[in-house]
């Protein structure tokens, strides 16, 4: 009955988290856009040691053709973890988890893509988790949204993801793998920050209604912070491009 005997210390004696962060502090975040030559749009995003590559192809003709819709573009989305991205090698075949996450990530992006502009076309989003340290689906959404913008696809807003959690009774922002594994709850959220719309919401774990509200507020603040970096990265790339011309 003592399955969690190897549980590491999640909070240090000074009240900070195991990696030295405050409960409401994000991991160091890095973003780059246009990192691939062939894709129409791409982005590489890091939340701490979690590193995700997203590539967007399209709008283009769907394969096979009959899956197209006459009044809008379809989105095709694949979330995939590289075999070397985890501690134990992950089989490259799609797992049930990856199938579910591909669905919820697509559904998180659907509300912001102005798909009606491209009837019968396909917009393809390929996400590769290169290194996993917690928060891979939310990092993926941040990256995919940047890749869509980089591909020049019209969007209503960006989408930004972050995972909040409950760790040793404390609601914390941007949980990593250790906090996810030994914490009491993991709640990934993605939102279109300017529109104030939540496009992904999941909870694995148990929260009281008041803890849930606290977690939701913490996540929305974190999302605003990450959103600033996203916008900055796009501005830097495209404003610089203009100057160079």
């Amino acid at each position, binding site marked *: 009955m003592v399955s969690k005997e190897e549980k590491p210390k999640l909070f240090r004696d000074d009240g900070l988290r195991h990696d030295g962060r405050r409960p409401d502090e994000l991991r160091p975040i890095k973003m780059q856009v246009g990192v691939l030559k062939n894709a129409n749009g791409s982005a590489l995003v890091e939340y701490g040691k979690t590193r995700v590559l997203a590539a967007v192809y399209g709008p283009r003709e769907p394969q096979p053709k009959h899956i197209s819709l006459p009044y809008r573009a379809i989105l095709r989305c694949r979330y995939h973890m590289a075999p070397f991205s985890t501690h134990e090698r992950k089989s490259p075949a799609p797992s049930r988890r990856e199938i579910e996450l591909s669905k919820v990530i697509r559904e998180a992006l659907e509300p912001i893509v102005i798909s009606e502009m491209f009837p019968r076309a396909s917009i393809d989003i390929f996400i590769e988790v290169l290194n996993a340290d917690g928060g891979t689906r939310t990092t993926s959404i941040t990256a995919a949204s940047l890749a869509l913008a980089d591909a020049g696809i019209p969007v209503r807003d960006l989408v930004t993801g972050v995972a909040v959690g409950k760790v040793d009774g404390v609601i914390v922002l941007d949980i990593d793998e250790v906090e996810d594994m030994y914490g009491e709850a993991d709640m990934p959220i993605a939102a279109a920050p300017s529109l104030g719309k939540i496009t992904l919401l999941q909870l*694995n774990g*148990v929260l009281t209604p008041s803890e849930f509200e606290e977690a939701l507020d913490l996540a929305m603040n974190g999302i605003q912070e990450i959103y600033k970096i996203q916008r900055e990265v796009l501005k830097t790339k495209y404003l610089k491009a203009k100057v160079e011309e």
Partner: protein
Amino acid sequence: MSITPSSDYIIPKLKAETIVSLIRKGVRASGRGLEDFRELDIVTNYIPNADGSAFVKLGNTQVIAGVKLELGTPYPDTPNEGAIVVSAEFVPAASPLFEPGPPDENAIELARVIDRSLREIKAIDLGKLVLIPGKRVWVVWIDIYVLDHDGNLIDASSIATLVALLTARVPKAEVEGEEIRVGKSEYTGPLPMNRKVVTVTIGKIDKIMLVDPDIEEETVLDTKLVIAVSDDERIAGLQKSGMGALDKNEVLKMTELAMKKGKEIIEIVEKSIEASTRGASTEQTARKSREDSEDTDMKGENEEETSQ
């Protein structure tokens, strides 16, 4: 790869517009109120060969959940716990939209949402399902079978799963050193449960919330939020499902409504279990002298048989 669905259930545009305009007036095409579930029928022990089972009819949606316990090895990170595996089959008999073949993303999502709702809150007392610590444990196989799709598959499946678990029994097993002998249709007692959990799916159109959408309503919803609610009034899981978006206040309103409806559903489940235990008590006493047959709260029962 997940693709924007193209073969969704299609209804005439006029009908869709009528459904939406009625909902905006606070009523539904079926005459239900926005916060009313459809009629819920529960049949316990529907599958005699399963260790626990339930047939659930929610309106015209029909689902069976079957629970089977088999000997297995524990996961390396939880050597002193039994295991749970949840799978869902959307059989082609259930809908013109379902094709034979391996579970699609919707079936996988449904199974994983129900799995998570049970796992983290420890709804099943897995610590009591150990035969030889680190080596042999009971694996609780939960198989959800959708027989007829008329909307809200997740809640119907979650109710069926809870009833099947609450009526499931642990097969008799004798441990002799490393050997385990499992008795044929002999049981040591009910499956040890800690908590009762059901999901409540709330649909949204504009700013309007409604519960238990049928298949026609599902086609007009902006989005849905699935909320797992426990008998101790906590949120045991969440899943936004569908293409739309929600703002923060809508999410809070939805969870509040779900807590209320979840409590009601758990009460209905408890009553149906109570009725079935009473009905089956003569049969059970004939098979084995056991008291507690009226006891619907299975917590702490038969500790002596399963503790190691």
